[in-house]
């Protein structure tokens, strides 16, 4: 029964440490000007869609594929202009949270399967949008006669295939350098120069060739300015010129079309032709929003940036036929290319498709790569490509090549998603739920406070203050987590926090009862009792909190949705409970124990001898404060 020495207990120091912790959290709030927690959609209103992958085997899809899907869906959602939307992975599922209204729109776009198709181009046209782009953009000096998709730019190119049966020598005349195998085809006008590194741009398009047959690419630098429509344009369009790609284009008088006039309608389904005319590529809805295209039907589609619209043949090759797709720099040049490897069946189909295209007239010598129902690129076929390998060249930079490779690869593993759950909460319902949660939290706290004060009197004040400290810590933690770790407070969290009031309060109760035990024996001064009781109570509190924490961690890791949120809140409060009990309650009581009011067992202190019936402890001795 050694008297606690000052080294035993330094309540002041611990309290200062806690103050520093609170100030640090509060300071973070002030620095970030963030004083309210970020609210989840069930409280703020909005739509939550849960997508579950559907795989043929039923097995969980590989992590990286899921990550890619998350990126694509994020692009789609952002592409609609909805701000503040969140796309996150949760286990195998993808959860999309879209605040505010416009949910029907969102529901439509997010879950459609991203599938890749290769379709021969039957017809293509520069759109109004494409013309505007051209008109506003600076003319390229070297704009070698590429007046739009429909005809002349490739006037030369049909010749090239003929001249280059093996694709090896097939340098189209438009291509400035003489290297045989370069596959750059001057296809279309908006040739873009990446980040303005090359002022002059030869209007080069993308082209597909067999990697095997074009071993030495050696592209002249100018070729890099090719029209990377998939990469640059789409990016410009969607993300606001992120990459700083600046468009420079050839000034092209675009032959405006009368319906069907000049269109090679041979073999085109009249219905699709109608769709084609009706298709408005200026409407963002028709670009990049995951329209489900039937691979067995002809299809009218827009280019991702809206500059072209196409009539496309049935899909002869689909994403599942691709084995893998990679991006890299061609040997001996600085040009970024995307390489495709087909599976055996795909290789045969691919070979057939490319020879058909190769033997067709412009613009049917192109094969469009369609992802999500939108043409992401439509390179010329400059030779039939056997052997199951192909390479897409022209105008890529590292980012755009990587992106296309990912899209190709991703499409190669069509991850079908099922909308497992859709939940839209109007802002008024959210408001109601938030208020309900907060009001019940306040009432709950008030009841606990009243009970603690009635039962524990003076000690009750300690309990109340401890709860206040716990509340401050919890609130700041939630705010700071919200602004730095994307933590959004939802109803399950609030419930978890309210329910945890009991856990926090229990720690004090355990400790208080221990102190009273010690006092009851009547042999100890309050100061001693506080220390001895602490040693015993500490163990109980730690074990009990450990149980709660294990529960929280297990639930958090295994559960989905609200349960995980609830578990998170429970884990957080358990930790805060330990902090409060160790850093506030204990040192605070130790300080109080030095006060006469408590040490002498004043009737209102909750530690008076009569109330605790010291006599019944057997020793009959009364608390003797002098001992302290």
């Amino acid at each position: 029964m050694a008297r606690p020495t000052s080294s035993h207990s330094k309540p002041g120091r611990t309290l200062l440490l806690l103050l520093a912790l609170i100030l640090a959290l509060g300071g973070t709030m002030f620095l970030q000007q963030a004083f309210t927690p970020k609210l989840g959609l069930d409280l703020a209103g909005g739509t939550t869609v849960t997508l579950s992958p559907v795989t043929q085997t039923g097995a969980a899809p590989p992590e990286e594929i899921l990550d890619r899907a998350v990126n694509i869906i994020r692009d789609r959602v952002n592409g609609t202009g909805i701000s503040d939307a969140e796309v996150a992975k949760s286990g195998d599922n993808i959860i999309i949270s879209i605040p505010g209204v416009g949910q029907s729109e969102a529901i439509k776009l997010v879950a459609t399967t991203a599938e890749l198709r290769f379709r021969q181009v039957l017809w293509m046209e520069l759109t109004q949008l494409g013309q505007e782009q051209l008109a506003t953009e600076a003319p390229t000096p070297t704009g070698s006669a590429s007046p739009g998709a429909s005809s002349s730019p490739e006037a030369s190119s049909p010749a090239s295939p003929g001249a280059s049966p093996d694709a090896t020598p097939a340098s189209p005349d438009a291509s400035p350098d003489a290297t045989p195998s370069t596959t750059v085809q001057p296809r279309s006008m908006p040739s873009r120069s990446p980040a303005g590194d090359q002022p002059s741009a030869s209007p080069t398009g993308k082209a597909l060739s067999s990697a095997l047959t074009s071993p030495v690419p050696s592209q002249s630098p100018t070729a890099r300015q090719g029209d990377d429509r998939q990469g640059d344009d789409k990016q410009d369009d969607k993300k606001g010129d992120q990459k700083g790609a600046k468009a420079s284009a050839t000034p092209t008088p675009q032959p405006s079309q009368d319906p069907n006039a000049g269109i090679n309608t041979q073999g085109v389904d009249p219905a699709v032709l109608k769709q084609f005319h009706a298709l408005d590529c200026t409407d963002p809805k028709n670009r990049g929003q995951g329209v489900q295209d039937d691979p067995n039907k002809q299809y009218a589609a827009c280019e991702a940036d809206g500059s072209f619209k196409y009539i496309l043949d049935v899909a002869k090759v689909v994403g599942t036929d691709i084995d893998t797709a990679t991006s890299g720099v061609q040997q001996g040049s600085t040009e970024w290319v995307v390489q495709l490897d087909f599976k055996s069946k795909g290789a045969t189909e691919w070979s057939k498709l490319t020879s058909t295209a190769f033997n067709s007239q412009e613009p049917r010598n192109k094969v469009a790569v369609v992802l999500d129902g939108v043409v992401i690129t439509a390179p010329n076929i400059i030779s039939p490509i056997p052997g199951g390998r192909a390479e897409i060249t022209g105008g890529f930079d590292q980012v755009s090549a990587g992106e296309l490779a990912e899209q190709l690869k991703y499409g190669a593993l069509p991850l079908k998603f099922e909308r497992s759950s859709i939940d839209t909460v109007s802002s008024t319902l959210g408001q109601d739920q938030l208020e309900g949660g907060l009001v019940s939290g306040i009432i709950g706290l008030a009841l606990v406070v009243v009970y603690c004060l009635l039962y524990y009197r003076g000690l009750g004040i300690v309990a109340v203050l401890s709860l206040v400290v716990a509340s401050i810590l919890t609130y700041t933690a939630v705010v700071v987590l919200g602004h730095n770790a994307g933590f959004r407070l939802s109803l399950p969290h609030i419930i978890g926090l309210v329910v945890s009031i009991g856990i926090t309060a229990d720690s004090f109760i355990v400790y208080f009862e221990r102190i009273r035990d010690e006092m009851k024996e009547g042999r100890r001064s309050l100061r001693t009792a506080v220390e001895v009781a602490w040693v015993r109570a500490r163990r109980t509190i730690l074990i009990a909190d450990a149980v709660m924490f294990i529960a929280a961690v297990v639930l958090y890791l295994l559960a989905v949705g609200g349960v995980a949120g609830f578990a998170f809140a429970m884990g957080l409060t358990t930790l805060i409970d330990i902090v409060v009990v160790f850093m506030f309650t204990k040192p605070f009581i130790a300080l109080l124990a030095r006060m006469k009011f408590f040490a002498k067992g004043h009737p209102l202190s909750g530690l008076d001898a009569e109330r605790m019936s010291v006599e019944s402890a057997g020793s009959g001795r009364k608390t003797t404060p002098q001992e302290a």
Partner: protein
Amino acid sequence: MGLGRRLYRGEIDVDFVGKWRLWYSLSGILLAISIAGLLINGLNLGVEFKGGSVFSWQPKSAVSIEQVRETFLDEGVHQPIVQTAGERYRVTTETLPESTTLEMQNVIAKEYGVAVNEVNIQSIGASWGGEVSTKAWWGLAAFMVAIILYLSMAFEPKMALAAIVALIHDLVITAGIYAWSGFEVTPATLLGFLTILGYSLYDAVVVFDMIKEVTAKLGATSKQTYSMAANDALNHTLIRSLNTSLVAILPVAAILFIGTTVLGAGTLKDLSLALFVGMIVGTYSSICVATPLLVTLKEREPKYQAIARRLASTGGGKGAKGSKGSKSAAVAKG
């Protein structure tokens, strides 16, 4: 002296352990009723588990349930279940295809004079519900294993076993109440069940900690059997158990109150109901099930059997099971 005062002073001495037959039969009956309820009625699972679509909105003017049902039937939706929650209407249907869902949203908006985006929709695929339940079961199993391991280390395997049995006892009885009453089981209810797990264990841990401390002193010459010592420990922590339970139930009662009066059916009500029931059962079981069970297990150990035999022969104790407890606060010695 009133009970309250005696409680406050810690002067209660109830022979919880000795009345084990009473508790076991009481719990046995409760369990049997609950299991019967689960088998006969089953749980009324919410759409989150079985799939379905839920529409909820607050009509501008007063409408009848029948009117709302008509609206859905007119649109070709089968068997809509219409509920009211406060002034809000809540209609549950089978899982509707996306197009129908959006159409219904527009129809509701038009007929009841609310903005389209004020119509809340929840649509859950059937397989998703299955996944939620499967994950919940796995979570529960993993949780139990983790707790058994932890308690075996922190205390001892027998205590871990007794705590887990008490836990299952609480869960089954709470589930039984849901089965018999037909209350809907939603993910929020699940949260409630999970919290019960935490509380039930938390309570048992505090009691067992005290039992461990008290029984550690038992030796060949001690005047107490394991039962007596455990009963003393139990009485000793009784105030704390009751205080803790009360303090835990107060916020839950607040949620239940707000959830039912202000919000009507919804997350708060589903959750707090489970909690309210579960906490009361949990408090009971930590005192009347977990400890007697632990005692039953421990009294079979040769060491404690020896003590019981010795005390029985000398008349120092009142039988291995029927401890009346010692009068003094022997617990707090040292």
